[in-house]
């Protein structure tokens, strides 16, 4: 069943599941891609979204209200929520690095079986961008990772060890894919939920990393 799911459905499925883990009041930073979609599924109204280009209190915006100078870190137009504030990039990363942001939700290329992630560089290609990924990983109180369970060619992305350069020596807290949800407990992956339509056999088959059930 999951094999026939299109990319957009898969991304929304993951985003909806992540949103269930967010309990307000909290400040949450959303990365580019699947993490951005999480905002569509947040049920509580005391979750405040932080974007590293200098806004606490991100909300969605109607087409007619788009302001070209009001964007999120993905350079997409956003709106300002009630109680929003603007600040410079240094203050924004002080919030992140200083441990004032409760949750960071990021994408990843690979995750290893201890919860380390690689999401900024691919060997053999020019290393062109890191953005705020390293800052978010060291600083956010909790880090959630969202990604497709396997690469386009079907190879596992949950590996014994990352083959790409790691983003931080800090382990993430939870990993969400279209097949499963893992928690990182004592440097080990623990399967805590199967996604709709997924079976434990399929998860085992498509996961290289060791995990407990």
């Amino acid at each position, binding site marked *: 069943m999951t094999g026939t799911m299109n990319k957009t459905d898969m991304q929304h499925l993951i985003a909806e599941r992540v949103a269930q883990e967010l309990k307000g009041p909290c400040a949450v930073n959303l990365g580019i891609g699947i993490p951005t979609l999480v905002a569509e599924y947040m049920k509580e109204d005391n979750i405040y979204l932080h974007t590293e280009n200098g806004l606490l209190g991100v909300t969605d915006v109607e087409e007619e209200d788009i302001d070209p100078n009001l964007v999120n870190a993905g350079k997409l137009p956003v709106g300002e929520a009630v109680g929003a504030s603007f600040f410079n990039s240094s203050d924004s990363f002080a919030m992140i690095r200083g441990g004032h942001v409760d949750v960071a939700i990021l994408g990843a290329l690979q995750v290893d079986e201890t919860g380390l992630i690689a999401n900024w560089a691919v060997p053999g290609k020019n290393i062109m961008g890191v953005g705020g990924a390293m800052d978010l990983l060291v600083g956010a109180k909790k880090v959630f990772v969202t990604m497709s369970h396997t690469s386009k060619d079907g190879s596992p992305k949950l590996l014994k060890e990352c083959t790409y350069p790691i983003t931080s*020596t800090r382990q993430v807290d939870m990993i969400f894919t279209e097949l499963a949800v893992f928690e990182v407990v004592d440097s080990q992956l623990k399967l805590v939920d199967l996604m709709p339509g997924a079976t434990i056999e399929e998860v085992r088959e498509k996961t290289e990393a060791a995990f407990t059930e």
Partner: protein
Amino acid sequence: MSKILNNLNEALSAVKTGDTVLVGGFGLVGAPLTLIDGLTEKDVKDLTIVSNNLGESGKGLGILLNQNKIKKGIGSYFTSNRDVGDKYQKGEIELELLPQGTLAESMRAGGAGLGGYYTTTGVGTDLAKGKEEREIDGVKYIFEKAIRADVALIRAYKADTLGNLVYYKTARNFNPLMAMAAKTVIVEVDEIVEAGELDPEAIVTPFIYVDGIIKAQQVLTKKGVVNV
């Protein structure tokens, strides 16, 4: 002496070949579009440009890149302009990649008279290679050097005639930090008002940091960059 400049030549007179230049903006948002455009017309080269990205392909700093005026780029996200990768592959540009928070903090430190600082960001990664590591209260940090520059080209929303600045929404980003970290700071603004008209409580960049003000001739609108 008035800080208000009459033309782009005057505004960019401080920029010399070989200089390190800070350029504000997060993509095109908050970028000094008029000053960047002026720089593409100016006969300078071997510039070290410090900016979050080097524009987009053929846009903003991307034009300067294609003119081979940039010797080195220091930033956090060059991915937004594919031409940067091509130039780097051919050995035509040096790049220094910094985590975005480190890029920002290094300029703040430079502007605040510090030599550098220790940060947890990047510890144990490829970007920590060659950087001093130190343990403080049981936590590992790496040393990051402050950034100082010859010139900063930034954008603000309003300036008063003294050079006090206020910004607009997410167009603030790196601009106030860059205002602190360069010998000569030139700002382009949407509006210039008399001293006393800006609320002192709302001023983000006090005039002490600002050397020259020019009215923006290019602004970012819903339809893209337009001349005004």
